[in-house]
């Protein structure tokens, strides 16, 4: 295993990505015309509610959208690898794990319950033609030790012998052990207690910096992205409604949905009633409007044009916002 050095992190460019799911009512888009750039060596966070399409977007990075879904348009360009949307068969399989690591939600059981972690690690090595099995085990132990675990013990354990936080670290180890440079973390801290959450986020940040990774974190928890992400993208109804540097987006949200989200966060000090829940509920696959803005039903700034035209994603400096109201305000 070649040791990772900073500076060689690949960039990822998602362009015009649309993912549709086949339903009795026809093919419905879960992700529509999403463009997103992950700068080399950066941590990008995607926030959104359940059903906003963020997990589907994450799976698209590995061209792993599960049937009945499929990528119907767009590309996912990864430096040094190419457009993974065109990959299939062995080529796709080898890209997964070796180039792109995927870390499952901690609450999910991402390990075979009948095999020890070490045996599954060796299966992984065999799948990717790793000849140096000792080296692989050593690398895994080092990674686990780096994350504060007793590597030898963990490799000798079954899934049910590990706690949620330990499983999550094992998941991160398995995503990185083959030296993948692009890492996708899907809800990395969901279902973990607060202290373990903080630990995992610290580990994500540190390992990211040490190994020179390009990282994407999917979450519904704005606190998580505030903690780790350089850039933040807000997803709603299968669309990216706003993206930009984390501090700017959180400190000065432009899109009415982002504003609503931030207003909904209860403050540690002050009156709990100051937190305002967004009225209405997010659209489902079937209720996402076919034309016009996906957020208009819950939007205070709704205009006539919102019913007919889908707002284009427009760059405002380092920010990208897709909202007619914002555009109007800028011009006014």
């Amino acid at each position, binding site marked *: 295993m070649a040791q990772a050095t900073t500076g060689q992190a690949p960039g990822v460019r998602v362009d015009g990505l649309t993912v549709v799911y086949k339903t009795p009512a026809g093919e419905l888009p879960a992700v529509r015309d999403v463009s997103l750039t992950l700068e080399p060596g950066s941590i990008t966070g995607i926030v959104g509610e359940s059903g906003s399409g963020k997990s589907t977007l994450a799976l698209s990075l590995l061209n792993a959208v599960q049937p009945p879904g499929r990528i119907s348009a767009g590309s996912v360009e990864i430096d040094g690898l190419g457009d993974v949307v065109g990959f299939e068969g062995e080529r796709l399989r080898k890209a997964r794990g*070796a180039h792109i690591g995927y870390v499952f939600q901690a609450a999910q059981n991402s390990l*075979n319950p009948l095999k020890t972690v070490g045996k599954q690690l060796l299966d992984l090595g065999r*799948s990717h033609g790793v000849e140096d099995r000792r080296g692989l085990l050593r690398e895994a132990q080092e990674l686990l030790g780096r994350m504060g675990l007793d590597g030898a013990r963990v490799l000798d354990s*079954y899934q049910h012998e590990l706690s949620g936080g330990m499983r999550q670290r094992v998941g991160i180890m398995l995503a990185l052990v083959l030296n993948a440079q692009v890492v996708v973390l899907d809800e990395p801290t969901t279902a973990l207690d607060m202290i373990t959450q903080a630990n995992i986020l610290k580990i994500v940040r540190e390992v990211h910096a040490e190994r020179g990774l390009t990282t994407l974190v999917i979450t519904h928890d704005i606190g998580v992205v505030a903690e780790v992400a350089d850039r933040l993208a807000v997803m709603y109804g299968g669309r990216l409604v706003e993206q930009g540097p984390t501090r700017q987006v959180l400190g000065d949200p432009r899109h009415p949905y982002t504003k609503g989200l931030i207003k909904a966060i209860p403050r540690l000090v002050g009156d709990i009633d100051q937190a305002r829940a967004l009225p209405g509920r997010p659209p489902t696959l079937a209720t996402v409007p076919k034309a016009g803005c996906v957020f208009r039903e819950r939007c205070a700034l709704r205009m006539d044009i919102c019913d007919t035209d889908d707002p284009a994603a427009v760059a405002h400096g380092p920010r990208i916002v897709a909202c007619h109201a914002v555009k109007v305000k800028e011009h006014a």
Partner: protein
Amino acid sequence: MTLIARRLAGHLARGFVMILVVATISFFIVNNIPGDPMAARFEKLVEGGMSPEAAAQAVKVLYGFQPDTSLWQQYLDYMAGLLRLDLGESITRPGTPVLDVLAEKTKWTVLPVLAGTLLSFLVGIILGVYAAIKRKGKLGDLLAISGSLLHGIPQYVLAMLLVVIFATLIPILPADGPVDILFEPGLNAGYLGSLAEHAVLPVVTYALSAYGGWILAMKSSVVTVLGDDFILASELRGMKRSIVFRYIARNAILPLFTILALSLGLLLGGAVFIEKIFNYPGLGLLLIDSVNERDYATMSGAFLLITVAIIIANIVADLFYTVIDPRVRSGEEAA
């Protein structure tokens, strides 16, 4: 491994107590069945045209004794004999130990039922995996339906159907007992060949009527495992298809081993219809006959054999689980 040894010791102790309890219960039930063996034989002879006097005389000669001890004393004798593995003598076969009768009959039950169970298990799980993978297609449905359908046909109807087709209309297979009497019993090609040839129809009957259950069980088990997160996780880690397939298979087959072990325990209960139709002098027929003839000793012996088989099967299933499922193993350690 001390854990397995400890578990085994516990199981054996419990099993031993269970056997004693079942032996006691079956002894008293069997001995309280209305009628007695001599009356049964007497009636049979009278029905056969013998005069009542002659019949009474014949019965007396045949059995030659009248039990004169109390039931309680008989029970103690029976249990004492049991501890020495002495099940007494068959009443309708004077002079023959029950153990010998059981041993003689057991092989004609084990042969077709064991082969049938294993064959149906094998066919069932393989087709079950296929039915799970192709569950959206027509072939997957067809497999599941065929299993349910054959499962729904009574075993004796299926058996007679096969006899009519393969032994009568197209006489290519024998259906007249377990083996051709021409051959000398032993490990010679002729005898074994004849054994196998005669076993084809009963084994196929048994397998056909049983494989549907295995298909459905395996199919649902595989579908459950396919939806498990770790399968998708393995794919996202770029695991080879063959390795992912092994993960699926091993996890899916786990619950089926329990059912298999338990059904092997029931095996000695015999398959009465199959034994009857294919003329296999097995345990199922023995049990029916001994009930009709009020042969207490044989009845008790047969019941006991079935009990012991089921208890052993349970123990084997549990120990097997300890070996193949790490979660069961550590559950014990924690307890």
